[in-house]
């Protein structure tokens, strides 16, 4: 199971989704993404799994086989890298 760390806030502005650390987080940059990142982050507001995220994304977006799985894995890896996931 995984969830977005409480040390990060989702901020949507001008069609862009930003993931922003509060002052106490070790990461001090921002992660900026598109609507897809926004959807993944929304799902991570509650406890979830990679499989559940992939499944929810497949309901929302049409993409060739394997693309959503790859994008979700990549996004989660980046989120993990900046300490934004509680697992």
């Amino acid at each position, binding site marked *: 199971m995984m969830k977005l760390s409480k040390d990060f806030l989702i901020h949507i502005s001008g069609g862009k989704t930003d993931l922003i650390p509060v*002052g106490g987080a070790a990461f001090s940059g921002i992660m900026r993404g598109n609507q897809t990142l926004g959807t993944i982050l929304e799902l991570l507001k509650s406890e979830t799994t990679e499989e559940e995220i992939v499944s929810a994304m497949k309901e929302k977006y049409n993409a060739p086989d394997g693309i959503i799985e790859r994008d979700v894995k990549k996004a989660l890896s980046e989120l993990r890298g900046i300490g934004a996931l509680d697992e």
Partner: protein
Amino acid sequence: MTGIYRIADINIAVTSVYEKVHRMCADYLVCGQTADFSVETSEADIENERERSAREDALEGIPVRIFPDSYLETLAVYRRIAERMPDYDTVLFHGSCVSVDGTGYLFTARSGTGKSTHARLWRELLGERAVMVNDDKPLIRVGESSAVIYGTPWNGKHHLGSNISVPLKAVCILKRGENNRIEPLGADEAYPEMLQQVYRPMDRDAMRKTLSLLDRLSGSVRFWRLFCNTDIEAAKIAYEAMKGN
């Protein structure tokens, strides 16, 4: 020891371990008034600042600098103040602000880019018309359709600043360049840099408020990006563009 200081039109009671912060804030001292809020620092705050400073030095790849406790406490006091300021629609911003004819122009950039150097060029160019508001960490109060920038006691290593406030007209993101060139910047393009240079509270609600104040600020000031060297020409082209008509 405790003193009440009026900073950004807010009365703040500061209680500290060391005297240094009170000497630093002397120009902002008020007497016989009540405080809007209070901050108090302890040895633990000082230790926290020491650890933060060491982490930042390590990130920059420089030897860990040693600072006296009294100096570290001044940082801790401002951190505690900055945590409360979003309640007053106000944010701490890392930048150098010059007032020209009573209008504020703010320069921001990563440390070491040359904010203070560029602000000095404005003073050389404009003489007495240019007054330093703050050379390091001013406060910005963000209204519905305008913003006001305030001098504070935390005004950089050369202590350049004044206990004044002026309307903020423009924010300029500085980049080093061989030649001098300025261009308007959309709020969306400026946002990541603004976010890097604003104080990010540890409290989630205060952080949310900070983000909403940054959004509001985007609607009330103009943004510019200046590629500059250290010639006076840099100040000339920046001022001509930023002052508008």
